[in-house]
């Protein structure tokens, strides 16, 4: 495989509450390659968004800080990069799409103004050149009637249209890497497929590397090349998408897959994983999943498992068992 475009190494992010620091991202490592989609899945509160924000250098300061690890991008480490240089990277080399398009655009400025401001921040082009670039970006995500939209304000656009604007904004400067944090979660189901389609089309066309954060396993199965499963701030299993779905090894991954409703086979109640993700201040000392795990050994309660590579898969489990039909 080619050299990774972005390499996250042992990234650890802490949040400080009332003077005590908690790790919300714990030693997360993954690589991103050109023309590839890496899916990052897990329950709410497992640290997916914090991981993405840490890569972008956008974690809320001073409440949170990166306590360790590297984010290697080319020959630079984004973690130690001065803020001034990091700003050059953001929106240009690496860009991000957020979950809620309704609140993610400044309501006081027109779409055209917001887009051209970012363009002119990174490119020394005239106002009219920037407008042409913005217009083209809006056309590429198939926003209807882009000329009119340029002069409209966010409140005049529907949620789906606003998310297209967000995608256009993220893609207009041709980034190497796109981080999409639950890009379709807040949208109507009918619009979700359209938006995902636009996003994928653009990713393939540009040969971009994409980190797709979602809790929708169906989306991951359909579009991702590789999948990393996060639990309690850690990656517990990472594998190529077919391998992960056909042969999940970590009990948490298995639980997630079983929880997906199967309309053809199953009747009765949906499968759930008992318990919930431990809050960062109460992570158990051994494997963080052990209290919810049906196959936990004594060792799982006492020792913290490492992420071990094996046959192109990374697994963090002492006692993996093959998936048994529920």
């Amino acid at each position: 495989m080619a050299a990774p475009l972005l390499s996250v190494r042992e990234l650890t992010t802490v949040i400080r509450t009332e003077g005590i620091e908690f790790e919300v991202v714990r030693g997360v490592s993954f690589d991103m390659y050109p023309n590839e989609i890496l899916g990052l899945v897990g329950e709410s509160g497992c640290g997916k968004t914090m991981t993405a924000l840490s890569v972008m250098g956008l974690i809320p300061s001073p409440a949170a800080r990166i306590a360790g690890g590297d984010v290697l991008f080319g020959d630079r480490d984004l973690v130690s990069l001065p803020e001034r240089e990091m700003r050059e990277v953001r929106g240009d080399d690496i860009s991000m799409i957020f979950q809620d398009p309704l609140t993610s655009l400044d309501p006081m400025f027109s779409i055209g103004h917001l887009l051209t401001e970012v363009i002119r921040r990174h490119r020394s082009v005239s106002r009219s050149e920037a407008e042409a670039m913005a217009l083209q970006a809006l056309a590429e995500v198939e926003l209807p009637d882009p000329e009119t939209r340029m002069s409209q304000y966010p409140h005049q656009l529907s949620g789906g249209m606003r998310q297209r604007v967000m995608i256009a904004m993220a893609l207009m400067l041709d980034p190497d890497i796109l981080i999409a944090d639950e890009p379709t979660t807040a949208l109507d189901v009918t619009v979700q497929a359209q938006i995902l389609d636009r996003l994928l089309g653009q990713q393939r066309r540009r040969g971009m590397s994409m980190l797709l954060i979602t809790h929708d396993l169906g989306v991951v199965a359909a579009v991702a090349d590789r999948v990393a499963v996060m639990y309690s701030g850690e990656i517990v299993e990472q594998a190529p998408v077919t391998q992960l779905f056909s042969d999940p090894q970590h009990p948490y991954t298995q639980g997630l897959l079983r929880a997906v409703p199967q309309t053809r086979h199953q009747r009765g109640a949906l499968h759930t994983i008992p318990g919930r993700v431990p809050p960062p201040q109460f992570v158990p000392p051994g494997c963080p999943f052990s209290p919810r795990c049906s196959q936990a050994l004594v060792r799982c309660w006492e020792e913290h498992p490492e992420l071990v590579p094996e046959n192109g898969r990374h697994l963090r489990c002492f006692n993996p068992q093959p998936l048994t039909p529920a």
Partner: protein
Amino acid sequence: MRYLAGRTVYMLVILAISSVAVFYAIRLSGGDATAARLPASATEADRETLREVLGLNDPIYQQYFTYMGRLLSGDLGNSLTNNALISKMVIEHGRNSIILGAAAFLLVFVVGMPLGMLASVRRNTFTDQGIMSLSVAGMAVPNFWLALLSIWLFASVLGWLPSAGCCEPRQLILPAIVLAAEGTALTVRMTRSAMLENLDSDWVRTLRAGGLSETRVIGKHVFRNALIPIISLAGLRIGQIVGYALIVEVIFGWPGLGQVLVNAVLRRDYPVAQFFSLVLVVMVVLGNWLADLGYLAANPRLRKT
């Protein structure tokens, strides 16, 4: 446009109602209007004649319409005490009031907004706490006391500024600051909380993700959003300044509308008191109307699509 028309109609209705209220209130205040015009030795017959001439025996609603009719045709009448033309008094004293009021209004925003922004950016630091303590003081200290205190300190003790008078720039400084104190304090708080509220918005993260600098994000985008509540309360500041001007003008001997009004009331000079009260009402109502306009101009969500 409908919003604007609605607010304008609303303003006119308020004006009409308050003109009636002012007219009745003056008449309710008691006292004999002829006492100011006639010597004490005048007979009851003389007074009755004067009342008839002044129309004081007509039904009160008729007096109101006669008065409003004259007002609208530009005849403001004369002062009872020195027979001066009220129209001339308004122009002369109104100019002074506008100078003082405008100076205070400017101070409120030129000082209040930057301090509020600074406090929000330096949230929970010594700077923030210092600014907020000052603003609490600014709201808590009654302005007549602040006026006396500032005269004592800057005029008597330090001798830097004159204690009273009109109308040199040096004489404007103290009354303008005192008049602006409470509005400035409120503006500081409002700016700070509006900035903080917007700093936590999702779209701030979007702008940062686009690589914009903090100066841009905060100075342009967050501030632009914070302006909406500030502008919508700017009109109320006008009303506040107009109200406080009564006291401040009297203390600092600043010959403005407020001072004339206070004197007119004390001397039972009804035509003057009535008209100047109306002027103050008009200014307050107009201030609110301007605030509505500003709110409309500042908020694209209210503009017609």
